[in-house]
């Protein structure tokens, strides 16, 4: 055909493809425009940011807010396209990595000038948003928790204890992890091959297994990683081996949900269904722990201890950060500040879905029902043990350790590999990931 040949069209299409393939990379290399358009894109969990919150913040800031549902895959894709959300939801484990990779904005100057978010009013959990290049908890502040909980506390379903003829532990004295394991074995129950009660479910189906291990180790001033985070040390650290062995044995005991005994649901729902005797979850879960089935049969217990030096920090520190590539940092901060210190923060405090990120809001936590009062009694004791951070590795993603754990736990529990090989595989995979991360960001 004259004028427009197939060849020309194919060449044109190829050129468009090549240009479009390179365009995001080139675009991302351009300096970010300094001014926005009066719109702030917030990536967060819609369950934590409802339409009323959006309207409240829009009224308070005179800005338009676009909400994008929080999802790591989408977040990475937006960063890859050079167009990340202005504000996004993170968990503590990802913070050092985001800061190291210059993805989030240093908010220290904003906090210094804020009337709503005063540094001395910030809850200790906000230290998870500090990273000086070497340690979590040191340096400038890059974000803030939306709320938080001492996360190593326990919820006991008393019916499971009654069925087993076992006394429910005291809510004034912390169990040791060894006592907890013994107790879990006693209340664990299956009937005709079907699950009645899991004895002790923890670490969010192993997604947070490294956080549990880190907190146990920190009681002895030890870490999963070398001081410079360049190596995962389990086999060469007897205490780390002991902790990992303990967590592995819990899985092997069959008291926890594992790859060979999974639940089709999440652990919170299983507790509500009366299928978990002891659940390790933070204070926030008290807002939903009492279902029709568990109402009046749920007790909140202090966090267990590994070596007698009690620590009960948050292990999630879910909060917000501002992308370093935001087109309008001031607008993003305005939304951030109102969400963290304005009416939405007060509403969250009253709801009981977490300890507020500001100390001044602590008294607003609910204390009306008998359960809420019992929870508050335990919580007040735990708050004094929560002024700690976990040292997350800046070179790896927040799921790297747990993915390796889960991948190797299944063959280990099935007997295909030994415990030593299980540890060796995790070390090898995580250390490879650390080396990859280190190669990328240097340091």
């Amino acid at each position, binding site marked *: 055909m004259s004028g427009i040949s197939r060849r020309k069209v194919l060449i044109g299409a190829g050129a468009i493809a090549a240009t479009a393939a390179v365009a995001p990379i080139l675009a991302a290399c351009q300096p970010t425009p300094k001014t926005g358009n009066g719109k702030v894109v917030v990536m967060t969990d819609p369950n934590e940011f409802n339409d009323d919150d959006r309207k409240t913040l829009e009224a308070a800031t005179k800005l338009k807010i676009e909400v994008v549902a929080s999802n790591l895959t989408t977040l990475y894709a937006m960063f890859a396209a050079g167009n990340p959300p202005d504000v996004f939801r993170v968990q503590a484990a990802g913070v050092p990595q985001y800061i190291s990779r210059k993805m989030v904005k240093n908010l220290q100057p904003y906090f210094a000038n804020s009337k709503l978010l005063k540094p001395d009013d910030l809850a200790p959990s906000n230290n998870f948003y500090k990273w000086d290049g070497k340690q979590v908890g040191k340096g400038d502040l890059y974000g803030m928790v939306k709320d938080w909980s001492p996360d190593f506390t326990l919820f006991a379903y008393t019916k499971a204890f009654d069925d087993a003829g076992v006394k429910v532990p005291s809510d004034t004295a912390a169990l040791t992890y060894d006592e907890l394991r013994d107790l879990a074995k006693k209340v664990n129950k299956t009937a005709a091959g*079907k699950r009645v009660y899991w004895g002790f479910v923890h670490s969010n189906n192993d997604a947070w297994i490294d956080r549990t291990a880190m907190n146990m180790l920190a009681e002895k001033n030890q870490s999963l990683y070398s001081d410079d985070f360049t190596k995962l040390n389990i086999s060469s650290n007897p205490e780390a081996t002991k902790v990992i062995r303990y967590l592995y044995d819990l899985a092997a005991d069959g008291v926890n949900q594992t790859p060979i005994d999974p*639940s089709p649901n999440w652990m919170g729902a299983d507790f509500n269904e009366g299928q978990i005797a002891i659940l390790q979850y933070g204070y926030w879960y008290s807002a939903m722990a009492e279902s029709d089935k568990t109402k009046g049969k749920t007790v909140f217990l202090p966090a267990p201890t590994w070596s007698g030096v009690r620590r009960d920090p948050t292990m999630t520190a879910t909060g917000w950060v501002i992308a370093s590539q935001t087109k309008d940092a001031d607008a993003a901060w305005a939304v951030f500040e109102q969400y963290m210190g304005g009416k939405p923060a007060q509403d969250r405090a009253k709801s009981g879905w977490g300890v507020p990120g500001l100390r001044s809001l602590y008294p607003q936590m609910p204390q009306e029902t008998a359960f809420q009062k019992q929870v508050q009694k335990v919580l007040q004791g735990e708050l004094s043990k929560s002024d700690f951070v976990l040292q997350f590795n800046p070179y790896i993603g927040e799921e790297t350790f747990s993915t390796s754990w889960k991948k190797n736990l299944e063959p280990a529990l099935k007997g295909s590999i030994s415990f030593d090989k299980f540890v060796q595989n995790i070390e090898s995979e995580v250390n490879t990931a650390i080396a990859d991360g280190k190669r990328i960001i240097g340091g």
Partner: protein
Amino acid sequence: MAGATQVLPRTMPRPAAWRRRRVRRAVTFYLLISPWLLGFVLLSAVPLAAAFVMSFTNYDGLNLDYLQLVGTDNYARALADPDAQYAVGRTLLLMAVIVPIGLVLQLALALMVNQPIRFSNVFRTIFYLPYVIPVVAAVWVWKIFVDPTGGVLNALIGTVVPGFNVRWLVQYPTAVLAVLTIWSAAGGGMVVFLAGLQGIPAEFREAAMIDGASRVQVARFITLPLLSPVIFFNLVTGIIVALQVLVQPMLLSPGILGLNPGTVPPRENYFYVVHAYIEIFTKQLFGYGSALLWLLFTVVLGLTLVLFKTSRRWVFYGVEPS
């Protein structure tokens, strides 16, 4: 030049109207194919090209501040990666199971609903339904269906075999996945086979039967050869789907994360694209993951070409393909 014969030019000059009509036809043609072409360029060619560029870098998907060219390191790593090798084995096994069984089932269903029986349309609809159910819903239903504690499957078998209790997703995860994949794809393949069956003129079969051919001979020498282009199509698409399986094994995995970083399928369901997904989104090795996917693309392309090459020997077209 009086008396000389006038020599006509060898070709007549093209009238302007004729040229305009050709241009109009070309424009119409390209406008009509533009939705597909745009879709192909933006959704296939661009990502493919971007992934190819990425596969030679250390790109982590987060920012470009630390982007570096790494040459063919990612490809060398992929070829030496034991997890990738394991995943290739599992993927080939899955393909070897679900493609032939799927094809036979699809053809059997098509033959069944092609019979002049009452309510054949109802059966066609029932068989086709799984194909249009969203994969997330289908997998979720299966997960509950095979759950050892509250699942229907164990309860049903338990009525015949008291005390029966199998953890399907733990003990037989690949079998569950294979059945789910075959079940959900059967309707789509059936419709294609049905169209092929209905395109075979009845006269061919009737003539053969008048000549004394048995039903088996009719099937062997008339139906199957004339159906071979459809078999070929379903075979190629089946192989491509099997090699790229990702969503179903991720959604069938323990936990509720689904297709998100952190999900780890049972070891038996650790397929190639699952491995690539984990490398990309969990370990943030976008460059390495892209190399893995480009290797897969090369294999798929190679396999497809081999199939096309062999198709000359066993695929019979009513008209020769151009």
